[in-house]
């Protein structure tokens, strides 16, 4: 683990914890924005620049704006205390979840190893080999997104559309009528 990665991971975890314990919602949202930014950098470190770009724009950008809009429309409970009170049952559930997940840690292949099924799978090899020939795009992610897994992307578009329709339904803004 390089020092940069270590610092990044520590930063992300710290931000996540901060969102959880800060009592002020605005503070929590700011911590969340920082968290998203940290995650976006991690994506880049893990050689996923497309994902990093999207995360920075959507996660850190759009989502934060949405949250800010929401507290502008509602309230921002500002208390006398800075930190939330600890909720023990929730902590128990969280610890149990992490505990259960941690039991699978040993079975997972090392990150970055060259022998993992994901890296050696035919699917990966096929995409990397044929992406340019078949789709004519140098970026394999774009090729897969638009061509090989076009249905998922269509579904993604539908989800965004649903969200738009959903907001209309939920907030009763009748624009078609």
């Amino acid at each position, binding site marked *: 683990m390089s020092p940069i990665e270590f610092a990044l991971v520590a930063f992300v975890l710290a931000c996540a914890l901060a969102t959880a314990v800060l009592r002020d919602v605005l503070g929590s949202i700011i911590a969340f924005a920082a968290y998203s930014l940290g995650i976006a950098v991690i994506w880049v470190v893990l050689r996923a620049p497309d994902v990093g770009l999207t995360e920075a724009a959507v996660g850190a950008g759009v989502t934060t704006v949405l949250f800010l809009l929401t507290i502008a429309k509602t309230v921002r409970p500002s208390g006398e205390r800075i930190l939330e009170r600890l909720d023990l049952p929730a902590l128990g559930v969280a610890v149990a979840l992490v505990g259960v997940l941690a039991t699978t840690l040993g079975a997972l292949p090392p990150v970055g190893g060259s022998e993992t099924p994901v890296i*050696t799978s035919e699917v990966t090899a096929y995409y990397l080999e044929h992406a340019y020939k078949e789709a004519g795009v140098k970026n394999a992610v774009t090729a897969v997104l638009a061509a090989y897994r076009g249905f*998922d992307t269509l579904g993604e578009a539908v989800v965004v559309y649903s969200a738009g329709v959903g907001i209309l339904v*939920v907030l009763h803004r009748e624009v078609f009528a």
Partner: protein
Amino acid sequence: MIDGLSGTMIVLVAVSALGVLSYARAAGPRSNPFYAAYLLLVAGLTGMSVTGDLFNLYVFLEITGLAAYVLVASDDSGRSAIAALRYLLIGTVGASLFLLGIGYAYIATGTLNMGDLATQIAEVGYTATLVQAAFAFVVVGLFIKVAIFPLHTWQPEAYASAPDSVSALISALVSTVSAYALVRVVYTAFTADFLEANPLAADLLGAAAAVSIVAGSLLAVAQSEVKRMLAYSSVAQFGLVVAAASLVNETAMIGAVVHLVGHALMKGSLFLAAGVVATATGARTVSEYDGLVDRLPVGAGAFGVLALAMVGVPPTLGFVGKWYIALGAVESGSWVLVVVIVASTLLTLAYFARLVERMFFRDPATALADEVGVAASEDEAEVVADGSDLGATDGVVTSGSDPATDGGDDAPSTDRVTFGMYAVVVVTAVLAVALGLAVFEYAEFLEPTITRLLTP
């Protein structure tokens, strides 16, 4: 990927959606975004039914979920908004756990296609930790979506507070198609061999199902609101389906599919019938159903028939499904499940008999006099009382006035029970009985699919 199983689901989705639409045309929230969300829900459900790819399934699951959350909140009340938000949070956790399960499966095998996964998982080994973890998270994630007992907490409030047409649509289809997805993933991607290699997994499925049946029924008995009662009943009924899926044998699988279809039709139209009752008389709680038959003979009759079908009185659809499942359990020799399945009839009876008794064997006047807000039926009740005093003619005579006019006085004055609303409820009530006799033909059509599912 279309076989007998997914074909069944597509037809079910199409038919139920059409039926609910003809109800919602008159009763439902009438706005263009509502219909857009409605169509998106149907699109998502159809997508879930036909896809053969795990991640694709996740995307469609989210489309379905998103449309469902929105539809629950499609009326004006704050209550439905809270229920929808709760549904959204818990539903998202379910979908995310499902995605995590996909992640484990992908890391273990490097593929996402279900057919491909079946062979790859066999190579990796059924008892590998990664495969087991993938199974566990996929199942738990879908359990949340199906609303199996300890993970059902979003469901009753969402069903109870949504507009009637939405409750019917969601109760008929969303959990049903999620249960289909569960069967599909477990049997197509993990295959029956996985369950054989991990008997504990099958046992846990069966145990969860048994708990769900018992707990769901007991909670249903405790409800005072009719729609909540119906919602808890779904928790129990899906327990039956999961129980069948855990048995790994043909008869039980056919039973699971028959019960899925049967439950969808019956529960969907029970919600519609509850909607008709609420629109016509304003009655929404169990105690307000007193003497319903005098005020709304057709509605009460259809409700009664559907309730009996749900209990599993032969020869209705509900009975045939249970028979197949119980027979499957007997064939597998899982006696505990046999006992639970057979006893589930009594448990179901426990909450429906209460309602039937109130509808048919109580006088409305006594119970309604002290109810505020249902004044609409007061004068009607008096007429009934007079009628029975007169003697030779009986009480039913006086209820001959068109039910549509009943609620018209001052209760929900804008809503009226139209012919279309009645037609849907009555047609499904008839179907619930008639289809019971046709199930065997259908089972023979389904058999090749099931055989292929069980022998990879």
